């Protein structure tokens, strides 16, 4: 019984992985579809929805996260400003920034994308596109993968900036300590390696979140009850995937 359940989970995961990589490979091969104006419209709309519209929520979470993290670091590391700056860097830029930005995007965009595509599939709109001579991959998947990936990379950088600045602003108020000095330390400690890894995480998370959301949306069976299942499945798979990949990338990059 347990073995059967485990086996089913493993087989489902394998099937999802094969489908995910196949979809991403096909989408990568069809990036030229962005040359069509209607596809670019979907791309721009996706960046707006995933990136611009998320900035409010991202700002609030980044400010609160920055305050909480920096407060803890200062209370532990005390007057050692270099140590405070390093720990700030490690926690926000290397780990929490990309992770929390991805979680916000998953909460906002993953379920929306999966349920939107699932609804379109069930209503026969993918067939409608084919009747118009338009490949659903070109019009629906490519711009969403590209748009979500670009948006997550930008949101990650934005999150890290707001979190670091707000954290130090808070502690400088509370502890009556200089604001610009520790901030300047962070900037001097920040290496190209850290920035690159942060961007790499944003890129990978973007591809994974968009790919999984699109996959679960378009391969939904023709049943209205499949729509919410597609949405929740996409969100859960995305959460598991990004935590796994975050650990993997961090291990490879920083050990």
């Amino acid at each position, binding site marked *: 019984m347990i073995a059967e359940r485990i086996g089913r989970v493993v087989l489902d995961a394998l099937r999802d992985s094969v489908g995910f990589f196949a979809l991403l490979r096909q989408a990568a091969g069809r990036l030229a579809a962005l040359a*069509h*104006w*209607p*596809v670019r419209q979907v791309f721009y709309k996706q960046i707006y929805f995933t990136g611009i519209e998320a900035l409010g929520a991202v700002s609030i979470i980044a400010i609160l996260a920055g305050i909480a993290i920096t407060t803890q670091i200062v209370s532990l590391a005390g007057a050692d400003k270099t140590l405070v700056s390093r720990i700030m860097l490690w926690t926000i830029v290397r780990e929490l920034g990309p992770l929390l930005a991805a979680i916000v995007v998953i909460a906002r965009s993953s379920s929306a994308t999966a349920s*939107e595509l699932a*609804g*379109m599939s069930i*209503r*026969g*709109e993918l*067939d*409608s*596109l*084919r*009747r*118009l*001579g*338009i*490949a659903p991959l070109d*019009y629906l998947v490519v711009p969403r993968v590209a748009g979500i990936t670009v948006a997550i990379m930008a949101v990650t950088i934005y999150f890290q900036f707001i979190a670091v600045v707000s954290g130090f602003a808070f502690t400088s108020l509370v502890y009556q300590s200089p604001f610009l000095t520790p901030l300047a330390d962070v900037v001097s400690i920040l290496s190209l390696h850290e920035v690159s890894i942060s961007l790499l995480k944003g890129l990978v998370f973007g591809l994974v979140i968009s790919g999984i959301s699109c996959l679960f949306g378009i391969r939904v069976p023709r049943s209205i009850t499949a729509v919410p299942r597609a949405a929740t499945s996409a969100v859960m798979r995305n959460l598991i995937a990004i935590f796994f990949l975050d650990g993997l990338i961090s291990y490879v990059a920083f050990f």
Partner: protein
Amino acid sequence: MLLRLDQIARGSLEPVSLSLAAGETVKVIAESRDMADELIGIISGQFLPTAGRLELFGEDAASLSEAARLGLHTRIGFVPENGGLISNLKAWENLILPATFHLDATTDELEGKVSALARRLGIPADALAAMLGKLPDRLTMAERRQVALMRAALMKPSLFIYDFLHTGLDRAAGEAMLKAAAEASETAQGTVYLCPDDAVSARITADRTVRLGAEGS
């Protein structure tokens, strides 16, 4: 030959043969909606027939790649019974979607063409303006089919395929729809009317009539 079905069958669709040469109009009477769905699904590539052979513009459909098949679809003006519109696009965006995708047409170019086309098809300017800003779920069935018809006509297809064009509409709206379709088809090489077996369908002028559900020819 624009379209050829050679003993095509699937599900409730009994083997049927049909051919459409340039300059012809064929009326296909379907005894049930299921049969019509099977036929439209086979022609549009949604699924394969379980028997028989389909040729589109002289090409064996079964041997075509996805890209080649989609390329041929740009030469076919499908007008589905439910309109076949994309739900998250307004009527105007739906209308210009294939033209902006395939022909790189700009909205400025298309505005004039759409107005002229609507006049030609007998759609009043105020009705046109009222419908174009709405999402498909806010349109009436007649409006959805009008948008689908104009969307197809903008592409200047070689072949029009109308699917149950007048069903579910009142008599006046149904007649207006058929009149608009006939006008749009003037510029095409061939036309297929897929119809239910009713009195309105009997009045559609065609070179040949094929019946689904009986011995097709």
